């Protein structure tokens, strides 16, 4: 990696002044650090916030030649103060709020929050609703992985690799539109079930769509995944060993790419995952390419989960009967919440205490903690720890020792999505 350093160096004695405009540019590092870097003949490179990828954050990279010595993140460009806003809104009003961190992954983000409410209130969700939630969560997972694959392609300058997954994503959006009515932000999952039943014709469409997605992914594999240029950019780049990944608390597919068999869907199973046959996708290398491949393999795994779920879905209610206790009999409909929504949910109150749920969102582990005081119908405190925020440390560590030109490839291989990380 460092052959460049072994070559004989030419020393040119040009006095270089460290930059002084740190304060007006709001660079969050002390001037001593900058001076120290310049004294040691190293440089600081600011990557972002406006850069040719998706989502914006700044990485302050300290380079020795073109080898990265240290990477300091400057996140928060998309910090939309969700935790504070949630303390000021009804439990039910927070559902649309909490899918905004990553709108392509809305079902998983909703699911975590809703499950925390259900756990605190001990609501039993009907089987059919569990299956439908699983299908939606997996559709969103595929969609997010395809999105990240496309952004990875943009990062390494492969335009076709960007166009192709987005064409496949259109199918996912179409499935979600048919199921929920919205391409991205459906807010379809509610405490006790889902908003309304999805009929079998639509489920059939989803099943057909999974076969079409599979067929198109084969082409994508030829174009991008197995492309020698992609492999050359990603292989052996940004390696995180198993020990490092555990130490830095990396999550999700990126943890599994380093050889840790941890998937919340297996470890602490929720919804219908323990009734379906599937396996955790793991790789051992821990480099950029295996991080990408794990997600590609997860797409096929998810397609299989969707097909199984559609095959085994039972008939029945989609909204828990527990919710309708104090509701006018005319508006009671266990297959559609319309008409009874405000009666049921306005005065939702959680008992005193703290509830924490784990969810496997597409990019990894998602943690919701709801603290309730037992009197208010708004949460006292909601803590969201999103996957992006958890693997940011691992991402920064994996940059060390790599070349500056590989930064984009590593960024893409993590699928880092600032709105999700900053919340």
């Amino acid at each position, binding site marked *: 990696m460092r052959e460049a350093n072994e070559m004989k160096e030419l020393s040119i004695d040009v006095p270089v002044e460290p930059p002084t405009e740190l304060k007006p540019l709001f660079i969050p590092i002390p001037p001593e650090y900058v001076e120290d870097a310049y004294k040691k003949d190293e440089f600081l490179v600011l990557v972002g916030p406006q850069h040719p990828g998706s*989502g914006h954050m700044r990485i302050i990279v300290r380079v020795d030649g073109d080898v990265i010595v240290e990477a300091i993140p400057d996140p928060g460009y998309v910090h939309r*103060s969700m935790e*504070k806003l949630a303390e000021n809104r009804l439990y039910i009003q927070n559902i649309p709020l909490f899918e905004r961190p990553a709108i392509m992954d809305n079902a998983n983000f909703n699911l975590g929050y809703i499950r925390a409410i259900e756990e605190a209130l001990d609501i039993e969700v009907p089987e059919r609703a569990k299956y439908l939630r699983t299908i939606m969560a997996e559709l969103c997972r595929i969609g997010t992985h395809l999105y990240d694959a496309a952004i990875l392609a943009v990062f390494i300058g492969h335009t076709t690799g960007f166009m192709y997954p987005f064409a496949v994503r259109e199918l996912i959006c179409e499935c979600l539109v048919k199921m929920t009515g919205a391409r991205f932000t459906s807010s379809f999952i509610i405490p006790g079930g889902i908003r309304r039943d999805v009929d079998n014709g639509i489920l059939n469409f989803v099943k057909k769509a999974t076969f079409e997605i599979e067929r198109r992914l084969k082409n994508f594999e030829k174009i991008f995944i197995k492309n020698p240029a992609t492999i050359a950019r990603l292989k052996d780049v940004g390696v995180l060993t198993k020990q490092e990944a555990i*130490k830095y608390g990396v999550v999700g597919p990126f943890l599994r790419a380093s050889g*840790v068999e941890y998937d919340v869907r297996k470890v602490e199973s929720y919804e219908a995952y323990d009734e379906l046959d599937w396996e955790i996708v793991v790789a051992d290398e821990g480099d950029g390419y295996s991080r990408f491949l794990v997600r590609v393999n997860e797409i096929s795994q998810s397609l299989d989960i969707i097909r199984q779920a559609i095959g085994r879905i039972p008939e029945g209610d989609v909204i828990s009967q527990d919710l309708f206790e104090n509701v006018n009999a005319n508006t009671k409909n266990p297959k559609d919440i319309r008409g009874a929504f405000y009666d049921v949910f306005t005065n939702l109150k959680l008992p005193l205490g703290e509830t924490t749920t784990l969810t496997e969102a597409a990019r990894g582990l998602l943690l919701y903690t709801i603290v309730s005081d037992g009197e208010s119908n708004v949460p006292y405190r909601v*803590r969201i720890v999103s996957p992006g925020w*958890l693997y940011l440390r691992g991402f920064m560590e994996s940059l060390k020792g790599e070349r500056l030109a590989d930064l984009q490839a590593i960024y893409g291989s993590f699928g880092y999505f600032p709105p999700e990380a900053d919340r």
Partner: protein
Amino acid sequence: MDSRSIQVVRSGVLAPIKKWGTKWSLWPVHLVTACCGAELAHAFASGYDGERIGALNYGIARQTNLIIVEGAITRKMARVLRITWEQMPEPRFVIVMGACGLKGGLFWNGYHLVKPSDVVPVEYFIPGCPPTPEGLLRGIRSLQEKIWEGKNRNSIDFNKIELARKEIERRIPTPPKIIARNPFIKVDVPKDVDWAFGNRLVNELKEGLGNLVERITITGKNRICIRVNPKNLQRVAVKLKDKFDHVKSVNVIDVPYDNTFIVEYVVSSYSNRELMPVLVTIATKISKKNPKLPSLHSYWVSADYLEREMQDLFGVTFEGNPWGNRKFLLAPDTPDYPLRKDFKLEEEVYARDEATEGSKNEEQKQEQGGDKE
């Protein structure tokens, strides 16, 4: 070029050619500010193919002439938006997509949000949360029309209907929110669960930690809460760090009731299969007057960024954290410690009556104030 030749290009015989060129080469710069970027990507990918109307995303601000602001602009991003806009050559345009960019959308009363129209001059707003790709492309088409014709034109004319309203007395609804004013907070409420391994684990922890801890409670299936005195926090961390190898969350809860902060570390394990689903919350109470706590960064590296975030949001100092007192997540000009309970956000007004707006608003404010007290 001297000013005269610029005049010729702007308004002389070459003007139509220049207009035509600008119309069909609106290049948006890559400035994905928030989640609407997902729909922007769709609009320029093969499904909708924005390139066919001459718009192509490009990386560098100095060679582009259009900014599409995608959704929320935060205090930190606002500066970036301005700098990017200033870098672009004339003529330059700004389109804002999404409800957040219009009036704040879902985040309208957030502490970290600004309106893009306060930062840069905006040509068009595209409403929606998120708007569809068709909506975005229509926005670009409208801008093209504006460049060509030099003025705004409605692309759709709606039929106008005279609305007559009967005079009825309007009652402003009371807000449905019930917020307890100074509630009691307890994070380790015991719960009866059928969890044999948990009981065994709790006994094991009790033996291992001895009188370092105040109480160990099972708060649910796979959830254990350990209540610790802040003095013993580091010693407990030393004993737990071999069993539990990473931190999943650091949380602070502001409790005005007894003027304290509850600080929680949620730890778990990746290496031990049996402990994988178990979350152990180490909760400790510190005074609000002097919110200081030893950092556990040296025992769990994964707690580092989470501690920095909590320091930003609550002003709790984690002594020994390498970042020190600097702001990490928030913009430098954000008000201090926004997640403390004494930092209030603007409240929503549920109904407005234009005629008597002033007086009714005051009444309502008093009503709301009364509710709280």
